[in-house]
């Protein structure tokens, strides 16, 4: 792969705000729609009697949703420019679909929140921004769409921006993490081409804006966490005594020679080598999948965590977390789950539910259960301690999923609080 940077984007908006159209337009403008796909769109648009190209057809994939005409799940779409690879998670905007946005946002760095210029900031917008804030997205683009339907009026744009800025006040975002862009996804205004119809807007087009974002700026910088995924023991002649610990590095760099502590045993050693395939490196950056060897023979198995000895995380058997329920089986006090924290699994019991959180920044209420799409604060008791950071400090080491012990479904996602 050429050295293009990778930017992952989640879209959010209410039904019909134009998410699918926007994504189709981005594909079209970056020449990512191939002739056969474009022909299919032309044909279907004509069949349906449209006098324009319905770009939403590029992404609305499944038969069921073609029949209903709505997006029902998270779909991933890919396009690239000269310098950047983009992955877009198209997440639907129904009230009950908090789950989908949380899922799409969990693998993305940037959120694009669509607003229909005619409707302005509505209750849904609050929720979308609330979730962007909960997941600590690196950047939020507020795309004010359908400007063609409000005569490209600057006042409409300014009013919406003002309303949205009131929300930003209630969030943890800094103002430079939020960008407002007036667009028409249908007409292609300010998507890849600067709009002549909105000369009052002096900022970047959406695509230019997405291109100047740097992955490093969108990522938390914190402490190095290396959960061991797989123990590599070749037992071949050439690598007789080789014992490598394979995993993915999160949060910070690790170097050969670093003093490390292995959790849960709290044994210590030094990094002897950092390898990737048949190459050795002196230092690895966050987001690397590497294999580490240690100076000493230490007993390490999958699920253990390697950290710098000066930067040991919290180790607790009781934790508090914000939970988003992603399955229709409700979470209740006393229930037991398998808790998967990275690649490590322990048993967890719901001790208490502190509150159900209103997803529009309006506060909390008492509740004895969390249903699908609910977000709430929950206290757990674990069978063994886990070694964690707050989600706001280290996303990978501060998040977990809950697995139902009967169906094995993933029923919740948790963001650890300290």
């Amino acid at each position, binding site marked *: *792969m*050429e*050295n293009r940077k*990778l930017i992952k984007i989640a879209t959010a908006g209410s039904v019909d705000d134009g998410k699918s159209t926007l994504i189709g337009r981005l594909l079209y403008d970056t020449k990512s729609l*191939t*002739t056969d*796909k474009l022909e299919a769109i032309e044909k279907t648009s004509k069949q349906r009697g449209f006098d324009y190209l319905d770009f939403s057809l590029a*992404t609305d*994939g*499944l*038969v069921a949703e*073609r029949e209903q005409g709505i997006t029902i*799940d*998270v*779909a*991933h779409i*890919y396009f*690239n420019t000269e310098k950047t*690879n983009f*992955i877009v998670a198209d997440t639907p905007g129904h009230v009950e679909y908090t*789950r*989908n946005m*949380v*899922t799409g946002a*969990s*693998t993305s760095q940037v959120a694009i929140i669509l607003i229909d210029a005619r409707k302005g900031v509505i209750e849904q917008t609050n929720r979308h921004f609330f979730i962007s804030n909960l997941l600590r997205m690196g950047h939020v683009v507020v795309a004010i769409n359908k400007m063609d339907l409000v005569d490209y009026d600057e006042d409409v744009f300014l009013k919406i921006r003002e309303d949205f800025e009131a929300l930003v006040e209630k969030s943890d975002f800094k103002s430079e993490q939020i960008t407002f862009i007036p667009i028409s996804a249908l007409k292609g205004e300010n998507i890849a081409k600067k709009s002549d119809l909105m000369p009052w807007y002096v900022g970047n087009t959406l695509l230019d804006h997405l291109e100047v974002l740097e*992955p490093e700026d969108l990522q938390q910088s914190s402490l190095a966490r290396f959960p061991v*995924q*797989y123990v*590599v023991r*070749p037992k*071949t002649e050439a690598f007789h005594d080789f014992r490598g610990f*394979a*995993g*993915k590095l999160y949060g910070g760099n690790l170097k050969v020679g670093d003093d490390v502590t292995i959790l849960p045993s709290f044994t210590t050693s030094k990094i002897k080598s*950092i390898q*990737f395939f048949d190459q*050795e*490196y*002196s*230092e690895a*950056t966050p*987001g*690397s*999948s590497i*294999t580490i060897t240690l100076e000493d023979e230490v007993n390490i198995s*999958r699920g253990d965590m390697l950290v710098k000895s000066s930067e040991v995380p919290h180790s607790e058997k009781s934790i508090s977390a914000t939970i988003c329920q*992603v399955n229709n089986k409700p979470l209740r006090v006393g229930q037991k789950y*398998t808790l998967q924290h*990275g*690649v490590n699994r322990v048993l967890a019991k719901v001790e208490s539910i502190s509150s159900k959180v209103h997803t529009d920044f309006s506060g909390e209420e008492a509740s004895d259960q969390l249903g699908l799409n609910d977000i709430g604060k929950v206290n757990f008791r674990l069978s063994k301690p886990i070694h964690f950071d707050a989600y706001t400090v280290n996303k*990978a080491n501060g*998040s*977990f*999923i809950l*697995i139902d012990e009967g*169906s*094995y*479904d993933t029923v919740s*996602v948790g963001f650890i609080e300290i």
Partner: protein
Amino acid sequence: MSNLFIPNPKEVESIHILREVAAQFEKPVLLFSGGKDSITLVRLAQKAFYPSRIPFPLLHIDTGHNFPETIEFRDQLVAELGLELIVRNVQDSIDQGKVTEERGRYASRNTLQTTTLLDAIEEFKFDACIGGARRDEEKARAKERVFSVRDDFGQWDEKNQRPELFDMLNGQIEQGQNVRVFPISNWTELDVWEYIKTENIQIPSIYFAHKREVFFRDGMIWTANEHVFREEHEQVEEKMVRFRTVGDMTCTAAVLSEATSLEDVVNEIRASTISERGARIDDKRSEAAMEKRKKVGYF
């Protein structure tokens, strides 16, 4: 000496997934078609477990209508890397009367593969089948999970998929279920080609432009040989062509091309205007074709 490792994010993701498969399942298998995507998977698996050998076997469901170049290539790769290869034949499923050979103009063994695959899964009790499908190939694939749970009948229920959060993969399954795993879900066709080029990965010769006996039908280029149904009036010509996928001969169309090197191929893909699956005849049957096949356990 400072020697900083700067990772390729898509490669990292795939390696992470492959390690999770090896750790979470008892009997994983890599579905190997001999195509560029499965060859890329083999390279990624090699990297994921190095210096250990790849800790699972390859399974090839042979339709009997493969390009001979692909089979030759497969055997060479397996020998070189010391891999374990299992082959199961669609012909056997036909002989056992489990499936019936299609007839006529669009006859293909592509859909018959499903039965042979499900039988092999049962025979070996595989609990995870690693495949090279990518979400950019087709709209229905765009919603596929990385770990996609299938029931005993290999069926996919797109309305009832487990959400996948961050990079945490939940591979817990019930008795009788198995999981299809797609480590290169997030790669595009161009990503794969660029990777093959930077990594200098060997691929079968039919991916490069070569002279071949072909005929034209429905605006597509078909291989002229005994496995492919041809009407008398459909004239055979010799053309410079190459293949963009190497499925079954009966459902893999060629494209006119002069690209004889990897460099040429990458440039051609960059400039290309026909999507990869546009060259797969089986998808053209209907817009919802892929989704229907997935529901009955197709890769």
